[in-house]
């Protein structure tokens, strides 16, 4: 997996490069927009981490040219600006994700993994959550390699929760996912599916939390149980 980092701050660029190399990615690093543009013209990457405030040619322009050439390489934007306009403009130009400086390293790594996975998968892929694995193409889930007995709707709910592991999934998002399976997926039906999932997963230490008034959250594996 090859990643291009376009970042003009040497300390940050060095930190990113070394941490991603430790995760066994091949990392190239450039410090200006025109260099980034040039390298992207000649080399193929699986992911570009692009700072918006690059000297000479800014990140927006690099991104615009990249997409103009028809490249579909996933782009993660890094920016010191958190204004909504910048975010919208970046995403409009074809960025795939967005992180505001300063960020947590694990957060960046998680986004990098997700983007590379998205870039690679033609359709289904394997979602992993500790001992839990879900094959989105094969529509089946295993716990410690043992197949779980889940209905299609339960699997659908679990897939959404695993996609957004550690983050809140509200009932509307779950209902959306299940739309088409059922004519009507009410809030009560979702509660039932979640309840059944919990019964099947909790013995293995997989926790689905209810967040008051907001929805559900699949706790990150290894999260301390209090």
């Amino acid at each position: 997996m090859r990643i291009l980092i376009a970042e003009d701050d040497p300390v940050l660029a060095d930190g990113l490069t070394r941490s991603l190399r430790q995760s066994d990615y091949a990392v190239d690093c450039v410090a200006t927009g025109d260099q980034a543009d040039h390298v992207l013209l000649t080399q193929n990457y699986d992911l570009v981490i692009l700072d918006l405030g690059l000297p000479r040619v800014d990140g927006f322009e690099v991104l615009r040219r990249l997409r103009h050439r028809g490249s579909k390489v996933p782009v993660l934007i890094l920016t010191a600006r958190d204004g909504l306009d910048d975010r919208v403009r970046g995403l409009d130009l074809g960025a795939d994700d967005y992180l505001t400086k300063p960020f947590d390293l694990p957060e960046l790594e998680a986004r990098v993994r997700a983007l590379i996975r998205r870039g690679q998968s033609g359709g289904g892929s394997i979602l992993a959550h500790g001992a839990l694995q879900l094959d989105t193409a094969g529509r089946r889930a295993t716990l410690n390699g043992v197949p779980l007995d889940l209905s299609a709707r339960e699997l659908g709910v679990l897939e959404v929760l695993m996609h957004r592991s550690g983050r809140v999934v509200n009932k509307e998002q779950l209902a959306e996912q299940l739309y088409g399976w059922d004519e009507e997926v009410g809030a009560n039906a979702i509660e039932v599916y979640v309840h059944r999932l919990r019964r099947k997963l909790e013995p293995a230490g997989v926790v689905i939390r209810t967040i008051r008034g907001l929805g559900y959250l699949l706790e990150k594996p290894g999260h301390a149980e209090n």
Partner: protein
Amino acid sequence: MRKIRTLRSQLIAWLAVPLLVLWSLSTVVDYDVARRFVDLAYDRQLLEAALDIGRQVKVADNRIYVDLPEVALQMLQTREIDRLYYLVTGPENEFITGEPDLPALSDPTTDRVRYYDEEYRGQLIRAVAVRVPVQPGSARGAVMIHVAERLTIRADSARQLIFGMVLPQALLVFATALAVWYGVGRGLKPLASLRQEIESRSHRDLSALPEAQAPNEVQPLIRAMNDLLARLSAALASQQRFIADAAHQLRTPLAGIKTQTELALRNAQSDEVQATLRQLHTATEQTTRLVNQLLSLARAEPGARREHATEPLDLGALARNTTTEWVPRALERNIDLGFDGPDAAVKIDGNAFLLKELLNNVLDNAIRYTQRGGQVTVRVVPDTRTVKLAVEDTGPGIPARERERVFERFYRLLGGGSEGCGLGLAIVREIAQSHGAEITLDAGPNGVGTAVQIAFPRAT
């Protein structure tokens, strides 16, 4: 208020004082003029009387006598105003008739008519001496006729005359002052309404003052003030841009420090290095938070306001989404974060970006200061005229006497730990105020913890 009153009394003073001085001067001059006319009139009467007497001077048997009928005499002596005194002397200065002791002209001249002032029986008199030839053409010489009257009656007449003139003048001065007082009040009305306009403004409103209805004299003032307001808001905006730029500039090096620290924490073998790195990491997090809050504050302040237009938005949805983003943080600290609000949209006029900052800051405080295992709840409660956004926690609470002070910048509660930088609630207040919202700080439900309540006016 006081300044405007001063302007009015100044105008009054500038008008009334010269008017009074002029009035006094004119009284003096008027009196003089009146006196002169009175003198003229009375002198003429004296002369008439003297000439009347002169016409009656007869010569018979070489004796000169005045043939004054008794009636005429009485008329002279019992005039309505005051009696006249007279004395007729012959060519050799011999007494002919009248008051023998009436002072005669001491140096008989050749003038036909001569007026003079004298003292007679202890009173000032005005007299006229008329030389009347006894027989035209004869060498017998002339008879001197003296007629006098007391001066006091002239003073009385002059006084009456002057009162008749001066009193209406005084009334005129008074009426002028009154008219000026009222007129100035009316004339200054645009200034008063301008004052009201300025007084009723919030400190964040730096928009131009209305110029249209003001009279021509006031317009340059308004224009100058508008110019000042424009420069002020430009200066404010540039200062805030500077803070925002500085905060942005700080973010990249901070990201570098943070990434390097986290990387080093992973690789460090010795416990001592680990501990140092953890301290470094904590410091970096605090600095990051401070930088972010400075940025929020710069954004929330008046000068930056026009960059953040308001629009009708659903406060319920905004609060729900923002709260959702905080769930992972809350779970890390094992805090039960929840939301309670209506499903239906609750509209207020606001700026989504700023409102999110507001809730972020309240939630950051609530989660930071609530102990593990505690509870934080965000509520949206629609009322008839307001929508209340409340964040309740089961943390240590804020003592009642400190509740106002926590909104000050860089204010920290004693014993509140070292994590906060004390800007959070200042940002919250700034944003709440810019939305016309009222913010209150209370104890939470059952007197436990803190409840921050922000009441927004409902969108119409």
